[in-house]
């Protein structure tokens, strides 16, 4: 499948790599198909969550365990049902990064609203954690610094 992006030009990806977010990302209900790209991210765990149907819409995402090594959250039954998953190992979690243009070192990640994708069928959803242990704006680089 070929589609256009504002950052990376025209892109060709296997049809089987498209992720389906039935409800979209909160605030962007119209975009439901995404792909994960790793442009300019070599050697880092960052990826682009690029909308297939909106060339300009792309989120920088990261595996949350790269920021908080013991990151974990419960997946509610209704979410598991919607994503048709049978095992916790079905999920890839990612969190959306918020990067100030003038000072990327102040980047934060939304650990409270992870996006999870069932790798077996590529259905995904952004969920909001009920528990308040994780922040909407967790400092990415402060977290890395604290690691041993």
């Amino acid at each position, binding site marked *: 499948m070929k589609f256009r992006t504002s950052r990376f030009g025209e892109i060709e990806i296997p049809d089987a790599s498209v992720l389906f977010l039935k409800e979209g990302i909160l605030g*962007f209900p119209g975009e439901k198909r995404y792909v994960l790209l790793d442009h300019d*991210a070599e050697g*880092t765990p960052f990826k682009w969550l690029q909308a297939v149907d909106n060339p300009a819409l792309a*989120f920088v995402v990261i595996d949350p365990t790269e920021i908080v090594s013991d990151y974990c959250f419960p997946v509610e039954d209704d979410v598991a049902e919607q994503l048709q998953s049978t095992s916790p190992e079905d999920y890839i979690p990612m969190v959306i990064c918020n990067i100030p243009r003038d000072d990327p070192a102040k980047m934060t990640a*939304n650990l409270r*609203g992870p996006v999870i994708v069932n790798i077996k069928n590529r259905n995904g959803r952004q969920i909001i954690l009920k528990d308040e242990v994780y922040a909407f704006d967790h400092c990415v680089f402060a977290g890395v*610094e604290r690691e041993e």
Partner: protein
Amino acid sequence: MLILTRKSGESINIGSDIVVRVLEIKGNQARIGIEAPRSIAVHREEVYQQVQRENELAARRSPESLGNVRQLWMAKKKPPSPESAAGSAKE
């Protein structure tokens, strides 16, 4: 907007499977109980809005390239220098 007055202990039915009950009223705070199918996400409005705001901000700020971010990540991921590790081990 439909506006209803309810006393403590009274409920509102929304459709056939959602019940909102006023459990307790104390000053300007109300405790609300909600019974809804598991498929319906229930959140405090401000939590929902905050995630939406973070998403919108993230999309608006999304960089053209990850070059700067990659440099920052590499710098922070560097292991601690051997001298400082050896120094603390001797003590």
